[in-house]
């Protein structure tokens, strides 16, 4: 098994038949986990927006920090999700003029009432599904 260490980004890549593995919290994360993560990002974005109005850059930072590096999201992943949530009226956005020296306008996102309801539904579904998956994964014999 080949591997190389990317010191700059603090990652280790293991190369197994052209599949890219990334070590996060000591666990090898591959393409499968990438797809798994994709499926749950919407619920996570809704969750953090239910706590506070945030702009895109903050969402990426917060998800990275709170998940201890598991959810390192790229711009190309986050924004299409925000667009889908916005188009579904689960969140809404507004621009605010920058107050700091740079004065760059920021686009904040806030959750809507429909978004809060959707979050509750998704959370319930998640718990049911996670429990069911765990039940099966812990099976030792049929």
């Amino acid at each position, binding site marked *: 098994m080949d591997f190389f260490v990317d010191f700059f*980004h603090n990652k280790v890549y293991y190369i197994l038949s052209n599949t890219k593995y990334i070590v996060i919290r000591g666990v090898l994360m591959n393409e499968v986990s990438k797809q798994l993560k*994709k499926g749950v990002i919407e619920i996570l974005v809704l969750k953090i927006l239910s706590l506070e109005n945030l*702009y*895109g*850059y903050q969402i990426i930072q917060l998800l990275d920090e709170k998940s201890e590096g598991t959810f390192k999201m*790229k*711009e*190309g*992943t986050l*924004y*299409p*999700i*925000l*667009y889908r949530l916005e188009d579904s009226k689960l969140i809404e956005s507004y621009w605010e003029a920058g107050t*700091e020296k*740079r004065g*760059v*306008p*920021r*686009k904040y996102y806030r959750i809507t009432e429909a978004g809060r309801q959707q979050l509750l539904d998704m959370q319930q579904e998640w718990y049911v599904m996670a429990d069911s998956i765990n039940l099966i994964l812990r099976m030792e014999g049929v």
Partner: protein
Amino acid sequence: MRSSINTYVAAVLENIAADEGMKKRIEKDLIAHINEACAQGDEADILDRMGAPEEVAREFMDNIYENKEDVIEKLVQERALNDRLMRGLYEYKSKAALFGLPLLHIKVSNRYYGGRMGVAKGIIAIGNISMGVLSLGGIALGGICFGGVSLGLVSLAGISLGLLLALGGVAVGSFAVGGLAVGFGAIGGAAFGKIAYGGFAKGVVAIGGKAVGKYIISGTEISTGQYVLGEVRKEEIESVIRAAYPNISSWIVKLFSALGA
């Protein structure tokens, strides 16, 4: 906003196959996002962390379209549009018709890329060559024409031939207005006609800086080859036209006399 950020975002957008609305959305968000990141770090590091614009574009494409069919559909649309614009013809013919002609016919090709000339024929015709009641084209023929070169009853073009009225760089018509105007009535830098009004005017009636004709109102030569037509009163213009053409319609007289003071 820094130009390097704009350049980076433009490169990302170049590699995204999406409609203009989506691209605008991404552009605004990405610029705001990078600016925000740059407020907390070095710009070069931020752009390096984000990766090559092609990678960012791929990530967007991967997430904008939830399934492969959507991407394929978008790429096919883009390819077809590109083909139409770059090589082939773009054609639209309205179903509604009048006197056997479509109400609107658009037929345009980009000849630069080897396309054939699009000839549009309709009540309203738009094409490389257009023929219609209202006609817009490189070469426009018909009733009211706008084009590079046009021939019609009323014509506005670089080179304009109008049976009734011609307006253009070079205008030839019953009534012509242009840089070079030739007509029964002509108004222009150089005007030639039965009644001519211009910097240089030649006609039966000629009114101009330098006027040549039978009935003339001419300016004065201020230096060699330079003529200036001073203030001419409306009544003077009217009387000189009436002297040449006593039975002329009064609207023609009024039209020319309106040029006077």
